[in-house]
């Protein structure tokens, strides 16, 4: 933790750059790199929220993202495939959010008793079910997906407005998640993360907490899915298959799964790698030995895999963790006490303490022998 003022300055500078970006950044950079970064970052932030504050690593967040997209598609598209209800785009937003949140509530209730690897597997099952549902129930997905889904006129007129919507929602999600962490609900959620059994004996309904957190995350992921379909104009079942489901987890891990900021950092690295790395003519054609460029689009998974590996080796806490460490190192260099060093008084106190297990003569006769359990 830096001093609040330093954090505030960083936030203000960062936001200013992002707000002014469309003025000096190229259209390509804003529309393709940054808009996608914000959308994916928003989706990944729900994964990180659940993981960092609730101890739940969810693979169902991409499903929420996709369901919101399909809901918009079915409600808004006038012709083509799907339900073709042809309604107002804002009604599409409303329906998408309601459907996504209700689904998250349902799935969250079903998985509220599961933790750790079981929760991960259960949410992976949700993702697989969702993929096959939209792959096979063509009433809702069209056979090969839906196209021609227009955003509301306000956003259709000027594509950069989707960028600003993404920025606004990202800021709201970031600030909102952080604020929630300090409310009774958020603190309880962190208690559930650290020790559910203690929470239960203190009078908390642990399952209800997990369910509500999952629902909240689904609600926010729904907004990311809406932005995506406005930006993309189309959606098909492959877009919610296992591969992109795992991509969201990769984004979160690259960014740092313990830090909300990591969601957007990871998304930026992922999107940049996806767009730019393939254009670098590394290794040419190696004199005919390898015909194609090494970083051809087909090699993207290899590249992002190596990036992931490097980051995990360098910093298990992801990019956000690296930034935190650099900041702490700078603080130390400047001679400022890192506020993390708050255990000094405790250490002073423990210094004079007798070793553990020390006992009074009176206690000696009560020292238990190994009775062993009754058989």
């Amino acid at each position, binding site marked *: 933790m830096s001093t609040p003022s330093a954090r505030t300055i960083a936030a203000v500078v960062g936001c200013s750059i992002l707000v002014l970006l469309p003025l000096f950044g190229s259209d390509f950079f804003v529309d393709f790199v940054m808009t996608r970064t914000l959308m994916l970052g928003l989706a990944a932030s729900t994964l990180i929220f659940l993981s960092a504050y609730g101890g739940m690593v969810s693979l169902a967040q991409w499903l929420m993202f996709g369901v919101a997209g399909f809901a918009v598609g079915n409600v808004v598209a006038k012709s083509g495939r799907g339900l073709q209800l042809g309604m107002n785009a804002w009604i599409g937003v409303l329906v998408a959010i309601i459907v996504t949140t209700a689904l998250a509530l349902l799935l969250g209730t079903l998985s509220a008793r599961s933790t750790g690897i079981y929760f991960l597997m259960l949410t992976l099952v949700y993702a697989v079910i969702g993929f096959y549902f939209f792959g096979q129930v063509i009433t809702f997905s069209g056979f090969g997906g839906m196209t021609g889904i227009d955003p509301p006129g306000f956003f259709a007129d000027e594509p950069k407005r989707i960028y600003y919507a993404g920025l606004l929602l990202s800021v709201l999600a970031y600030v909102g998640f952080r604020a*929630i962490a300090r*409310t*009774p*609900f958020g*603190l*309880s959620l*962190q*208690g559930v*993360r*650290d*020790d559910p*059994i*203690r*929470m*239960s*004996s*203190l*009078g*908390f*309904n*642990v399952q*209800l*907490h997990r369910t*509500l957190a999952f629902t909240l995350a689904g609600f926010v992921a729904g907004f990311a899915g809406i932005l995506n379909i406005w930006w993309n104009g189309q959606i098909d079942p492959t877009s919610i298959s296992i591969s992109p489901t795992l991509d969201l987890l990769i984004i979160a891990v690259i960014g740092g799964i313990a830090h909300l900021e990591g969601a957007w950092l990871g998304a930026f690295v992922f999107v940049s790698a996806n767009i730019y790395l393939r254009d670098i003519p590394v290794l040419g054609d190696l004199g005919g030995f390898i015909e194609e460029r090494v970083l051809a689009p087909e090699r993207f998974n290899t590249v992002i895999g190596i990036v992931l590996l490097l980051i995990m080796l360098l910093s298990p806490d992801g990019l956000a963790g690296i930034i935190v460490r650099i900041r702490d190192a700078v603080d130390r260099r400047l001679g400022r006490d890192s506020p993390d060093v*708050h*255990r000094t*008084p*405790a*250490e002073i*106190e*423990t210094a004079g*303490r*007798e070793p*553990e*297990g*020390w*006992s*009074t003569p*009176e*206690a000696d*006769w*009560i*020292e*238990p*022998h*190994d*009775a*062993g*359990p*009754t*058989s």
Partner: protein
Amino acid sequence: MTSNATTPNTSRTTLLRLESVVVAFGGLVAVSNIDLDVARGDRLAVLGPNGAGKTTLFNAIAGDITPTEGRVLIKGVDCTSLPSRLRPQLGVARTYQKTRLFAGLTVEDNLYLAQTGKQRRHLSLWRGSRDAELRERARHAAGQVWLTDQLDAEVGDLSHGQQRQLEVGMALVTEPDLIMLDEPASGLSRGERERLIQLLEDLPTETTLLLIEHDMDVALKVADSVVVMADGVKVAAGSPDEIRNDPLVHAIYLGEEGAA
């Protein structure tokens, strides 16, 4: 001597009553046919060697496990199969033998959370008007267990002894009617143990204390009655002095070799 020791039996109201409680795990009978009557304001210590079934009995009272047979009544309410999360409403608070704290939160947040479960405000997204009061009580409780200097420290960074102190604080802060401490003195230094004894002796007289302790020093000073368990069975009960001089208790604790 505290005043409750001289209170006549007629005016005592039963706070906790166990009727023939049995806890069995498959073929292993961990707690066998225990009856217990604890009046409001009693200070009862449960002693016994490892594996005697003390903690299992505790878990049955706290609702972490449901007894195989028998009944648990708290304030006259049959809560044999009431889930543990509904027991704080009855004024029950417990600590754990193996520390169970929220390692990622600060000491103050831990003590704050300990109260919010009971307040039924824990789903709120707003701090609310009572929040400041809960924070104040959290800080007060931190003072009671000598953790004022560590209020903002993350609990995972505390020493073992400090975590044990916080464990007791987590129960104290809810101002319970029945406080159940599972080996609160384990891992404490002598000085800390004396402070713990002082703290327990200073509990309000109407607070009922149920204590599991290996450390005779703490148990016999704080308790005004003692139950000794061995192999899941209640083998002795009486005042601290009676227990201290009971040859059977000596035999159980020291083993057959020691008794011979």
